């Protein structure tokens, strides 16, 4: 049988699924992871950012709320939970520790200082330090125990440091205190020895005994022997030196001192070198010599002073006696004899010459000349020269004192006057102005007599010593405003004619300008106004006024015061200018006050004020012969006429007028030329005090004061002008009788004829003028006539001139009737014409 093949498999099997590479899933997973990672990163960023901000918020909170409050708040909230709170907690902890530690250290430092200052005991200090340390640590323990622990450790270190420091301080103090105690004991004991060296009975032996005791005391106190001995030696060295000085200074006399010096030279100071001992004794010798010189100087000063006082007052100073024993003790005998002679001479001189205090200048000159003459005949010319020099110096000193303060000089040299001023002061202090014024007038009488004797220039004749016047200023200015007017009037009335000078003397010593004017014023209302404004400043018064008012007021015042100013300033120089400026300032203040308070216009106010303050503003003379202001109590015309009549050669010849300085003005070399110049161009000006006139040359427009023979300005008080003129004319008239009266008649007739138009009269008068010129003219009448002849240009003028002659010069003249007839004749002739 055939074998049939069977189908043989090729072995093909169903394919098994191959392992897939799930890359997508893997990548998806990676993508997921990546996304997750990136989101994590972003989340981290955001978180870190948020954490940072939270930290900042936490720190900000600490800054705003403070460390401890923040910690306490967190503690109360159960501790920090958020990042911000943790950050706040961390920051607050750090800051709190530092803050608390700083406070604690501050307290520790304060404690050290306080303890140092109060010398606190170490135990007390440690207790206080522990309180600070524990207290501060405990304060933080509540909020942060960890921080509190750190703080406690730090504070413990600090407290140890400060304890150590204070221990050093306390130790140093204790050492210093102990040293100071020893030093003090030694110092006190040493001082006792030094003090005992300068008491009576102290000797070198007693001092050395005390020194031994000091040494033992020091050794007991624990001082090293070497140092203790050094101290004792030093103390004894000083003490013995002091003792010697003491003994020397308290020696009874120069001889005793010399004896001590010898002893010291033989027995040198212990512990001193030869040079030091030599210097010590040399110093004592110098002291001895200086003492002798000082005693000599003192005795000589006393003697000189006594001789000056003796010469000035006629008696030695109270209590002075020439101590013969002393003088001969301290001066060599020849010198002592000289001083004795000088004293005896001074006494003789006083007996022979009188006291310088009431000696007229002429007598002083006479004595001076006598002493000068003695030089030639004296056996001892040098002594005579000295006597002359001493005398001249005494006179110069007196004149200087009179020039500075004449009243003071008299008060010092005249016991009565000095006592009177003291009595016046007491009376014023008692408030009795009335009596004080009377007393002042009495003193014035005495002073004027003295001034007359001493020939003190009028301008220097102050009645009150300047210091006294200064006290019066204080009294015046302290018077209550309400009663001031009454008091001022009382003073002015009681002082009578001295009142103006009294006010000027006060003004010179600083009386306020308003008070000065108030004292011159008699109007109580004006006085009160002046006193009221005396304390006010003009700037204050101007406040509230329109800006033009001050200038308008000044303009109005200037207009009113123009003539017054010219006349016032012409004679007084800087003093008058000062017074005028004061018056002006017061008037300006018063005017502005009235404008402000009374609503016046500037013109009206100025007029009222000028009337009230310088009523004499229109009593002014401005002429060729004078520029001056006349006080209200005098008639301006009378004064002008009198002043004019002074400028007559006959009158001028009788006045005490010195020729102008020939060196500067050779043209005025002699008296006739000077008088002629004054008669033609002389000019009167106010004196510096406004109560009189001073005569001046007018040299080429320059006004030069006329001086008297004693060198003062020639001055005539208004009050004395008539008297002086009358006396002078009286004297002239007394000589008139010796002259042919018919000359006058001829002169007047001729003048009248000339005035009437007579052609021959001129030649007749010229002949008469020549005749008069050749005659020795001692009578001002002739000069008048001569002057009138030369100056008359009309009958009317002649009439007036003759009227003056009759009215002024010859009222008391026995020949008055002659003049009256002449005048009548002349007037009739003139009237006929």
């Amino acid at each position, binding site marked *: 049988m055939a074998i049939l093949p*069977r189908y*043989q498999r090729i072995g093909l*099997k169903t*394919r098994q699924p191959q392992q897939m590479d799930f890359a*997508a899933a893997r*990548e998806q997973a*990676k*993508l997921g992871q990546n996304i997750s990672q990136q989101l994590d990163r972003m989340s981290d*960023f955001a978180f870190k950012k948020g954490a940072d901000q939270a930290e900042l918020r936490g720190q900000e909170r600490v800054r705003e709320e403070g460390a401890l409050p923040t910690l306490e708040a967190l503690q109360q909230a159960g501790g920090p939970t958020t990042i911000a709170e943790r950050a706040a907690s961390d920051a607050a902890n750090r800051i709190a520790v530092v803050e608390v530690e700083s406070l604690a250290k501050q307290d520790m430092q304060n404690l050290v200082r306080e303890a140092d200052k109060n010398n606190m005991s170490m135990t007390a200090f440690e207790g206080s330090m522990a309180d600070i340390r524990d207290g501060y640590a405990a304060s933080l323990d509540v909020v942060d125990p960890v921080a509190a622990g750190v703080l406690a450790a730090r504070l413990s270190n600090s407290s140890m440091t400060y304890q150590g420091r204070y221990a050093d301080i306390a130790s140093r103090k204790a050492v210093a205190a102990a040293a100071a105690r020893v030093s003090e004991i030694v110092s006190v004991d040493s001082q006792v020895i030094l003090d005992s060296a300068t008491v009576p009975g102290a000797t070198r032996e007693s001092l050395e005994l005390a020194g031994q005791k000091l040494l033992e005391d020091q050794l007991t106190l624990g001082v090293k022997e070497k140092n203790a001995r050094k101290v004792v030696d030093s103390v004894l060295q000083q003490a013995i030196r002091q003792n010697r000085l003491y003994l020397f200074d308290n020696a009874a006399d120069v001889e005793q001192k010399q004896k001590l010096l010898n002893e010291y030279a033989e027995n040198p100071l212990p512990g001193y070198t030869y040079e030091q001992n030599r210097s010590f004794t040399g110093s004592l010798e110098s002291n001895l010599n200086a003492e002798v010189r000082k005693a000599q100087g003192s005795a000589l000063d006393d003697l000189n002073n006594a001789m000056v006082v003796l010469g000035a007052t006629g008696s030695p100073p109270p209590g002075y006696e020439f101590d013969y024993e002393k003088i001969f003790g301290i001066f060599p005998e020849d010198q002592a004899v000289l001083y004795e002679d000088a004293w005896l001479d001074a006494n003789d001189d006083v007996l022979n010459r009188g006291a310088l205090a009431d000696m007229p200048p002429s007598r002083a000159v006479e004595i001076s000349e006598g002493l000068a003459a003695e030089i030639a005949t004296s056996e001892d010319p040098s002594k005579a020269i000295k006597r002359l020099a001493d005398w001249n110096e005494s006179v110069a000193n007196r004149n200087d004192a009179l020039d500075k303060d004449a009243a003071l000089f008299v008060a010092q040299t005249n016991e009565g006057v000095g006592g009177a001023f003291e009595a016046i002061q007491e009376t014023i202090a008692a408030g009795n102005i009335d009596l004080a014024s009377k007393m002042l007038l009495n003193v014035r009488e005495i002073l004027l007599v003295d001034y007359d004797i001493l020939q003190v220039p009028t301008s220097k004749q102050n009645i009150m010593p300047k210091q006294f016047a200064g006290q019066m200023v204080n009294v015046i200015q302290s018077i209550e405003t309400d009663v001031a007017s009454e008091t001022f009037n009382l003073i002015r009335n009681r002082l009578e004619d001295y009142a103006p000078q009294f006010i000027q003397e006060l003004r010179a010593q600083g009386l306020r300008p308003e008070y000065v004017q108030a004292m011159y014023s008699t109007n109580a209302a004006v006085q009160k106004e002046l006193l009221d404004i005396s304390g006010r400043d003009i700037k204050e018064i101007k406040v509230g006024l329109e800006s033009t008012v001050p200038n308008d007021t000044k303009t109005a015042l200037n207009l009113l015061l123009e003539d017054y100013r010219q006349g016032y300033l012409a004679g007084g120089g800087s003093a008058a200018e000062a017074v005028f400026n004061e018056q002006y300032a017061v008037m300006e203040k018063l005017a502005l006050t009235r404008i402000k308070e009374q609503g016046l216009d500037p013109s009206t106010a100025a007029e009222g004020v000028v009337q009230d303050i310088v009523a004499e503003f229109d009593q002014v003379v401005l002429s060729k012969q004078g520029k001056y202001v006349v006080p209200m109590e005098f008639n301006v015309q009378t004064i002008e006429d009198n002043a004019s009549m002074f400028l007559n050669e006959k009158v001028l010849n009788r006045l005490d007028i010195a020729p102008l300085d020939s060196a500067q003005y050779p043209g005025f070399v002699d008296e006739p030329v000077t008088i002629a110049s004054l008669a033609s161009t002389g000019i009167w000006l106010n004196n510096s005090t406004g109560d009189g006139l001073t005569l001046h040359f007018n040299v080429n427009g320059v006004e030069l004061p006329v001086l008297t023979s004693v060198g003062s300005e020639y001055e005539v008080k208004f009050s004395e002008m008539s008297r002086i003129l009358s006396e002078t004319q009286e004297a002239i008239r007394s000589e008139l009788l010796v002259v042919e009266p018919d000359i006058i008649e001829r002169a007047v007739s001729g003048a009248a004829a000339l005035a009437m138009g007579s052609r021959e009269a001129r030649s007749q008068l010229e002949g008469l003028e020549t005749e008069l010129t050749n005659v020795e003219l001692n009578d001002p009448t002739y000069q008048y006539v001569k002057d009138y002849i030369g100056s008359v240009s009309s009958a009317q003028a002649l009439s007036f001139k003759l009227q003056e002659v009759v009215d002024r010069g010859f009222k008391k003249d026995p020949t008055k009737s002659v003049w009256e007839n002449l005048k009548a004749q002349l007037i009739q002739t003139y009237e006929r014409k």
Partner: protein
Amino acid sequence: MAAIGAMMATGGAQMAMGAFSAMGQLAAGSAQKRQYAQQARQAEIQGRSQAIAYKQKGADALRNLNETLAAIISRGAAGGIDPTSGSAATLQQYAMGEGVREFNIAADNAVMALGQASTQAGIYQSAGKAAQLSSFVSAAGTLGQSAYRYGQLQ
């Protein structure tokens, strides 16, 4: 060196370096995507290759079948056996069954190989996209980090 260090520490340098890093990450993502694309193509090629091999196997099975059938018929005829009946017919049926089964297996395997390759290629394409997307995310993260650092250093 200190100057370079200081310059590197500035915010601008941080920002620039972050940008460069992001760009690198993007480039890496693109490269990986390209790699996956190539792997996908390779997988497809490999699948087709395997399918061809499986088709060859199916042809081999059919040839083996033909040879078996021919032998049965030829030998039965030679042996006087009716090739259409009896054992010859059975053997032929058997051979037909086995041969066809193997052929079908080969055909199924080829289909499977192609399908599997296609699936793998699809996976690789998806992986490439995912990788690129991942690089975008990384780059974004890097840029974000750089911006943060820049902000911190300003």
